[in-house]
């Protein structure tokens, strides 16, 4: 069979269907992963003793466990105790937990880097503790956490491929099916790889634009450099 016929008529259409699923996985995971990261970081930093301990333990356990094992637990393990997810939902839940735990570390680092004076000033204006965190501390911390959060987002793009191990036919799964059927492993996975490279490269470029967009004069860069 002609190489170009194979690539354009068989491989790419299949991969595009897979790409849609990959994008759905990312779209369903990323917002909740960010929200979870914020919640865990704030809980760890500003919560009571129990909340703080719970948040810390959550991050400890998730970071210590391979994501693939976590996915197995969610998809194959939970039904044994009566909780059943579809493969897609199990994947998304796994990605949210994993992404959330890593995001929390970056956000917490950023929270710590915000000077005490910011909280004092906010409280002196009559804000409650939570109002101060929400309106003063977090907006600054999230800006500082952007480089780390973007890194995690890029990891999410790549690790979304593990959903295939739960039978979700996303981009790499679609590539694997075509490769096996037509015995075209190198070509298929090479094209799959190129698509991931494009996704990652576009995201990296978008992130640097975002960073410039949200930069506040006199804050972000110098502060990050000082922390290092």
């Amino acid at each position, binding site marked *: 069979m002609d190489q170009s016929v194979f690539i354009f008529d068989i491989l790419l259409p299949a991969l595009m269907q897979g790409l849609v699923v990959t994008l759905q996985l990312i779209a369903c995971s990323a917002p909740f992963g960010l929200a979870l990261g914020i919640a865990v970081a704030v809980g760890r930093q500003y919560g009571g003793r129990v909340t703080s301990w719970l948040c810390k333990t959550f991050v*400890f*356990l998730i*970071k*210590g*466990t*391979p*994501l*693939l*094992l*976590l996915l*197995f*637990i969610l998809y*194959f*393990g*939970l*039904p*044994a*105790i009566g909780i059943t997810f579809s493969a897609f939902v199990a994947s998304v839940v796994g990605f949210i937990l994993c992404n959330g735990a890593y995001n929390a570390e970056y956000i917490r680092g950023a929270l710590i880097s915000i000077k005490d004076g910011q909280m004092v000033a906010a409280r002196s204006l009559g804000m409650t503790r939570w109002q101060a965190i929400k309106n003063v501390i977090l907006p600054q911390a999230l800006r500082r956490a952007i480089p780390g959060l973007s890194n995690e987002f890029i990891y999410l793009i*790549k*690790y*979304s*491929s*593990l959903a*295939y*191990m739960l039978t979700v036919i996303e981009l*790499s799964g679609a*590539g*694997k099916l075509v*490769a096996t059927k037509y015995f075209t*492993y*190198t*070509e*298929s*996975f*090479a094209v*799959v*790889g190129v698509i*991931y*490279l494009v996704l*990652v*490269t576009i995201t990296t470029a978008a992130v640097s634009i975002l960073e410039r967009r949200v930069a506040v004069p006199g804050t972000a860069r110098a502060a990050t450099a000082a922390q290092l």
Partner: protein
Amino acid sequence: MDVLSILIDWLPYLLSGVASTLGLVLAALTLGLLLGLPMALGQVYGSRPVRWVVGVYVWFFRGLPILVLLFLFWFGIFPGLGLGDLSAFVVGAVVLGLRGAAYQSQIFRGAIQSVGEGQMIAARSLGMSRVTAIRSVILPQAMRIALPGWSNEYPNILTDSAVCYAIGVVELLTITARMVTQTHITMPIYLATAGIFIILNYGGLKALHRLEKRIAIPGFGTGAM
């Protein structure tokens, strides 16, 4: 049936998985070091083509998911090169190592670049060749600066090594899955494996931090970082 006694019966098998996983991680870390360090040197001191080649390598191996890399090399590239007889373990270790090299090279590059310019000038002023200066003055400092970042490669590779399950490497996760299939005990076995990974993860990190303290030198931030 008593879950605990079954688990104990299977324990030697599970431990063989631990050994296999640690073997993967050690091989990958070593390969990553052996390739990553010269790559970093090439990127800092090399000619333009060398820097370009290393840059493309890094971009490629950092841009692809580990699962796709494993599939690509296991099903495609190695058989295509006539290396189809390589065991899944070897391929898994090599792919983890090749990818680790991309990450490690960037850790070392940053560390080399953070060694003050004066160190090279002083070394050359004493009559050292460039190579001697890099070996005796720049690298010993860069390695110390790199160690905290390098330590984080260990948990990364440890957790990624589980993906080698996908190409049939008989490591901890594969053995876990087999045990689940054969014993029909699911959650306890999964949680036991998770516990083992967590112990390996933080135990290894602790050992690395101890190493950092041991080789700490006044004026180098390694101990405190």
